[in-house]
């Protein structure tokens, strides 16, 4: 996978090959960790925000992923890209972040606090934000494996094969999870209207 075009911070050493970066990560070089972050953090953060549905929790998950990377890189065999490997780490660490964020959203909803955009937001942006918020709330009611499969396949538009590699399940299982997730989400979002 190519390096993320919207690299947010630092100046990644793009001349370095992926193998070199992985080798340096294996040697525990802090600089290599920074470079991996610069290359892949935006993509991992996007996934985390889509999965968790809360910025603060997504950043916590992002930090956890990269702190885990030096010890987890030993199990990286190069069958997938480093970014896919990082997303799979995020999936493995997501459970308690998702639960926490879902609990907070449920509490906010109970007490009538709506985390809405400022009124100055243009209307179509406000509508988009509202749709995204409603989908996130519906995702909170899905089992985690279906939620992960839906976010990876539908929101991130990854192939079933790639998702299967990330979650460590057969492709058919991934497709089944997405099918059930879509069905439940249609019901929940339809009922919510």
């Amino acid at each position, binding site marked *: 996978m190519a390096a993320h075009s919207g690299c947010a911070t*630092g100046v990644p050493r793009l001349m370095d090959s992926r193998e070199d970066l992985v080798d340096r990560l294996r040697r525990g070089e*802090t600089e290599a960790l920074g470079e991996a*972050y610069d290359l892949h*953090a935006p993509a991992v953060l996007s996934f985390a925000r889509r999965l968790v549905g809360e910025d603060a929790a997504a950043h916590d998950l992002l930090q956890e992923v990269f702190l885990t990377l*030096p010890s987890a890189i030993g199990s990286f065999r190069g069958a997938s890209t480093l970014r896919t490997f990082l997303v799979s780490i995020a999936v493995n660490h997501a459970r308690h972040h998702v639960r926490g964020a879902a609990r907070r959203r449920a509490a906010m909803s109970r007490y009538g606090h709506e985390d809405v955009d400022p009124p100055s937001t243009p209307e179509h942006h406000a509508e988009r934000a509202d749709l995204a918020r409603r989908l996130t709330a519906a995702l909170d009611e899905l089992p985690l494996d279906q939620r992960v499969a839906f976010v990876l396949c539908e929101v991130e538009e990854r192939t079933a094969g790639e998702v299967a590699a990330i979650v460590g399940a057969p492709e058919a299982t991934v497709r089944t999870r997405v099918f059930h997730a879509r069905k439940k*989400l249609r019901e929940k979002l339809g009922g919510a209207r």
Partner: protein
Amino acid sequence: MSDDGLDRATAALREETADADREALQATRTRMLAAHRESKRRRTRLLTWTLPLAAAFVIGTAWAATTGRLVAIFPTSKTAPPPPTAPSAAPRNPVGGPAAPLPSVAPTVVVTAPSASAPVVESAPPPVAATSTVASPPVAAAPSVVASAPPSASIDRVALDLARYQKAHTLHFVDKKYGAALAAWDAYLAASSGGGFVAEARYNRAICLLKLGRRDEGMAALQPFADGAVEGGYRKAEARKLLDALEADASSW
């Protein structure tokens, strides 16, 4: 909701989360790297402390094992009774035979008093092995050491030393064959590699001499103990008491 509605919501979520806040990303990067560096520092500190300690422990244990002190430091059968030994464990020298003089126990101290009464000796020395944590362990521990020892020459030598000690101990405290025990103690001391239980063997040898009525030799052998010249005062008080008793009562031996 229709598929189209779900797709619109999915697209909305995708677009809403597509752009990352650069400042927030940078802040997370700083936090993450700081946490990583701290974790590395903690690991390094831990290694700095634990590696030398572990190395010292391993070296110390190896040294103690080769010199035979490991058994003395960690008695495995402190409460166990002395192991039964075959009565057929014959002494190397005939009972009552002349014991080989030990250079280290050479009677350099002038003994002026006659022997002490037998009961004094009867009551004092045998518990040396029966109750002492120093003298008893090798007897019981010897088989396990021999059984688990790696095939190294030094470990074999330690095991042999312990076997000799066990034999002498049995002849002395179980069989009460003092002549044979004296010979066995002499054999142990002559063959000992220097570590292990030389002090205990010397003390027991002195008791054997007294038991055999060789009062002067026995007292001379005890004198270094009474003077506190053996292993930092090993059995100093007992030896002193025994010598005093021997000097006071010259008729019983």
